[in-house]
């Protein structure tokens, strides 16, 4: 530690996010306590802002839903029409789906307990799964009711009523879909500054592995000393070759991260959005059926065919999300990580002989963990190599929760 050449000028930039909590053992790269929070302060804040903005959106959607449902119930009782009441029940199912999503969002922010060592992030995924099962259940119920309508063809199907009621439902659903899906403008500005600094922090922390073991310790020491304070130490006079790519690397990364964040919706908001989308598709189907029956009341079978077709369309929209959920629940390697390249890259590092038991899995969409056993040559420096490996993984693949067991080949 003493013979490393210190760099001459440091620019220290301090962003204070939250009041500092427990200071850890100095020099330690990790938070204290045997069971500590899954994420550090940076991601906690990003998570919390994203969560609260999603919860706000869902709350507004729930309130709108309840208002519309009350309107429909009153109108249905006054007009004594079963069709309107059925549509109100449909809106009730929307409220149920939103309630599930809200609960999952809220619960995923709970602190980790000794029985849940990873925190409650999985609740998001399970909530989304339950929500999608609800969509399937509702599609099944609709098909069942369409079949019933054919059997009980006592001619009391009023095409005009079906049409108007479902048109109203469609308008409501479209309003809510726009509100839930419209993510890009609003919630991003608040988190923007936070975002950029954290990018710089990441790239600076881990680009120094070739010469500055000391530096690495120094950086992380300053970084983790107080949990809420993120200190970025910009090393202006580092070696020439690391200066140029440093700037480009961080710029490129911040740009790409922004675009990625645009596309990635919170999974619970996305499942609520799918629910609403499914409902509007069904409303379109019922509208088409109602219009046809209004026009030609003897073509009742068209109603059933329409319902079937549109139910299949709704189920098709949920398939992609269901596949993502299944992959997370099965602890599979996330799609965005090329595991073969990672393994090869790790093996190419100096001093690494072999990689065993490499497991990459996600606790929720976006939070990836890695665990593996690395066998190193007898003369390699274990500490240095550990930093190397962790730095490589964090830098190239942005996986921050990494556990590496170093074994020495003898």
């Amino acid at each position, binding site marked *: 530690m003493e013979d490393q050449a210190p760099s001459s000028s440091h620019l220290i930039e301090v962003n204070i996010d939250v009041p500092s909590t427990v200071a850890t053992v100095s020099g*330690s790269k990790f938070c204290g306590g045997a069971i500590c929070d899954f994420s550090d302060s940076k991601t906690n804040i990003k998570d919390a802002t994203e969560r609260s903005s999603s919860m706000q959106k869902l709350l507004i959607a729930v309130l709108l839903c309840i208002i519309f449902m009350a309107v429909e119930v009153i109108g249905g009782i006054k007009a004594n029409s079963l069709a309107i009441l059925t549509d109100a029940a449909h809106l009730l199912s929307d409220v149920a789906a939103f309630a599930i999503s809200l609960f999952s969002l809220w619960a995923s922010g709970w602190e980790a307990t000794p029985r*849940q060592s990873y925190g409650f992030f999985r609740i998001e995924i399970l909530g989304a799964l339950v929500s999608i099962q609800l969509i399937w259940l509702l599609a099944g119920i609709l098909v069942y009711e369409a079949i019933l309508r054919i*059997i009980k063809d006592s001619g009391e199907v009023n095409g005009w009523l079906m049409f108007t009621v479902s048109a109203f439902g469609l308008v409501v659903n479209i309003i809510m879909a726009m509100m839930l899906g419209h993510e890009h403008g609003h919630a991003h500005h608040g988190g923007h500054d936070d975002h950029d600094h954290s990018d710089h922090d990441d790239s600076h922390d881990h680009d120094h592995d070739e010469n500055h073991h000391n530096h690495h310790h120094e950086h992380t020491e300053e970084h983790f000393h107080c949990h809420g304070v993120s200190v970025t130490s910009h090393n202006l006079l580092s070696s020439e070759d690391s200066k140029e790519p440093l700037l480009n690397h961080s710029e490129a990364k911040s740009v790409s991260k922004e675009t990625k964040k645009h596309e990635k919706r919170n999974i619970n908001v996305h499942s609520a959005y799918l629910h609403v989308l499914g409902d509007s598709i069904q409303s379109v189907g019922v509208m088409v059926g109602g219009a046809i029956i209004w026009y030609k009341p003897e073509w009742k079978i068209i109603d059933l065919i329409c319902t079937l077709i549109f139910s299949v369309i709704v189920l098709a929209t949920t398939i992609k999300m269901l596949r993502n959920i299944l992959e997370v629940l*099965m602890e*599979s*390697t996330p799609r965005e990580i090329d595991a073969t390249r990672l393994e090869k890259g790790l093996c190419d590092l100096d001093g690494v002989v072999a990689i065993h038991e490499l497991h990459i*899995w996600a606790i929720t969409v976006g939070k990836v963990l890695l665990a593996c056993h690395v*066998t190193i040559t007898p003369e390699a420096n274990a500490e240095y190599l550990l930093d190397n490996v962790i730095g490589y993984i964090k830098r190239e693949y942005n996986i921050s929760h990494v*556990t590496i067991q170093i074994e020495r080949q003898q």
Partner: protein
Amino acid sequence: MADFAVSSEPNGGTGSSFTAAPATQDSFKHRLPDGETQRPWSGRYGIDSGDRRFSFSRNQSFKPQLLRNDSCIGTGNSVRNRSVLYQMASVLLAVRSGNRQVRRLALLISLNVAYSTVELMIGLLTGRVGLVSDSFHLTFGCGLLTFSLFAMTAAQKKPDGIYTYGYKRLEVLAAFTNALFLLFMSFSLAVEALHAFIQDESEHKHYLIVSAVTNLLVNLLGVWFFRNYARVNIAYRKAEDMNCHSICLHVLADSIRSAGLVLASWLLSLGVENAEVLCLGLVSAAVFVVILPLFRATGGVLLQQVPANVPTSAFNKCLRQVTALEEVSEVTRSRFWELVPGRAVGSLSILVKGGENGHSVLHYVHELYHDLGIQDLTVQTDHV
């Protein structure tokens, strides 16, 4: 200090598992000081140890070290999107060559499908709404049982590059889906009871008795097939325990429902008022109570909870024992989860004070947690 010889790879320097053959190199685990590999049936961890503390490590699913896949990532065996037809064909093949449970389940499913198709035809032809709705309910149930069957057959597959932990989780997922469906059913039965209560006119369909009795018989046959799992609270030892338990509870709940319908018809014919409401409410409550433990257990596994059969005090004790080592200064980030009942995974981060005693510490920690039943452990040693 023992010599933990790890034989070198035939591929030399950067060999990992790019070739399909599993590496002959032993990963660092479970080596006794005299160098012999731990055998699961040796006295110390033996089944006949009689010590109740070891009941969770008594499971039979311990695989000898050499057969464990080291890193499956590069085996080139991983295809993400197999076509549906291929998967269905593989399921059929697996059913023909499967074990007893698989074949029984397949028989049950085909019985149910046949029955519900017949019911649907009769209902459509005679215009009886009750039959149609009953057949829909049965079809939903059959779909779920088919998913369980698929999970049972697919769980045998070896781990590959995408699913590095294998496919056993599918069984837990199938059990969770079954439990969820049964919860939905209980909820909908409660809604039906409420509906019957509000609508004072009793529009109970008596023709449903025949179908209810047949349904009851078929489901009782299913319960008989899976009679080993016909309990509410089961200690889950292997992955398929959860799946089979969920299947048994599924057919049990269906038979309770049919029995409830028969009972309601009989009580109504006796002239008991509100018999329907009573019976539906009873059935709904019974199904809820029966399914809740399974739901919580499967939910716990899927939520990455700490293994349920290991008490928290055992973990704390292990933590204290590790910290009591003289080389260890601190243990951070100890996390454990259960892949399927019987296979627990963990990761640990230890701060070690200088020196090259990494091996003994690693060995000690691995042994300690292996006693608890946690076979896959990754220990990161950081030097202060």
